[in-house]
């Protein structure tokens, strides 16, 4: 399983020269399975560059949206294959009562907010709520579950053979719970992350910042480390960087997180700050 980061920023894109080391695009991660199946996690602004660099190796593409906040869908209509009539694209998203997924997306992706309407896309596109039960894509099994964030939000667990990737870009498992000593079965998202080869996890805030943002749906770096340790994850990739955190600050946070990860019996080399362009072979 190959994982490539195209957008790692939370909330809003930041085209700032002091932030380009880690990158300014919002959430988008590409997962390529051994058989070439392509799965795209979220459609933040990073998906535009993914599309531009993309060498199609599959006739179909699966886009898995965790939720519909703007930083996770803002790049959707900049994904080139939507404008290729030979493309077959399935967009999965969180189930919710009321309007269908495409109708909910169209609140943003339609006039007057967008010059292109979802109904005009030349590609064959299907919008579907994520099933409650595990399903298969290519050689992988995928499981989705709602996790603690504002609004209905999914996390994903993708398993191919012995390799499991867990994706929790927007997640506040510490809300109302003491992560360090809560019963593990009663921690949001832990069933998705349990024993994963790698966990990509929200790490938006510093400890100081978190105090003023409890309940906003994001994690401080220290909680991301505690969560991954409780889940017995082998690797932790800190993700969804706050738009105010520049490269120097992210370097510092990474160093502190590695020390905490080591104290929790993790190998410090298995923790990293997600950066645009990074590719991992799991």
């Amino acid at each position, binding site marked *: 399983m190959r994982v490539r980061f195209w957008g790692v920023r939370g909330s809003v894109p930041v085209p700032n020269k002091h932030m380009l080391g880690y990158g300014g695009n919002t959430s988008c991660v590409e997962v390529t399975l051994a058989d070439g199946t392509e799965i795209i996690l979220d459609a933040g602004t990073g998906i535009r560059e993914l599309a531009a660099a993309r060498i199609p190796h599959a006739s179909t593409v699966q886009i898995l949206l965790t939720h519909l906040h703007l930083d996770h869908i803002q790049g959707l209509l900049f994904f080139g294959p939507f404008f290729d009539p030979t493309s077959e694209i399935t967009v999965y998203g969180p189930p919710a009562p009321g309007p269908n997924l495409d109708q909910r997306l169209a609140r943003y992706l339609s006039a007057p907010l967008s010059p292109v309407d979802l109904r005009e896309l030349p590609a064959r596109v299907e919008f579907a709520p994520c099933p*409650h039960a595990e399903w298969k894509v290519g050689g992988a099994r995928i499981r989705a*579950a709602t*996790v603690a964030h504002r609004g209905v939000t999914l996390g994903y667990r993708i398993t191919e053979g012995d390799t499991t990737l867990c994706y929790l870009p927007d997640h506040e498992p510490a809300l*109302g719970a003491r992560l360090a000593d809560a019963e593990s079965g009663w921690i949001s998202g832990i069933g998705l992350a349990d024993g994963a080869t790698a966990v990509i996890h929200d790490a938006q805030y510093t400890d100081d910042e978190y105090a003023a943002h409890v309940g906003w749906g994001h994690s401080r770096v220290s909680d991301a480390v505690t969560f991954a340790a409780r889940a017995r994850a082998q690797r932790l990739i800190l993700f969804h960087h706050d738009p105010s955190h520049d490269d120097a600050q992210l370097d510092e946070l990474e160093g502190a997180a590695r020390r905490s990860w080591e104290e929790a019996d993790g190998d410090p080399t298995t923790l990293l700050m997600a950066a645009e362009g990074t590719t991992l072979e799991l």
Partner: protein
Amino acid sequence: MSGEHQPLLLVQGRNLITGLALPALLTDPDGGLLFFNDAAAELLGRAFEEVGRLPREEWARQFGPFDEEGRPIATDHLPLGNALREGRPAQGRFHVRLAANGELREVEVSALPLLEPDHYEGALVVFWPVEEAASGTS
């Protein structure tokens, strides 16, 4: 998902009732007891840690529902059964048996189904002694 890993609605429900001064409990979709809070423990006379998770029949046998004579009554059409069957909040009254002294106590019960778009995760049940509720409003 593994049975040991609870879905978000139950996790959030437990977080909510842990800090609630009103007696409350959580069940799975079959009505099995998953957790009750300290206020419920005070009323029932046993801590959750002593009781643990129980199938619906077992915790009904221990705590109720009973009629005023202490006879077990069917749970299907009481608040929890209605909530889990019909997917709507349900209210009712019955008696529970207090573990501390075996006394029967009439309680008023509200059950809220924890309903996702296409399936149940369980129910959140709050209950309170009828006498206290009556005196509290006088």
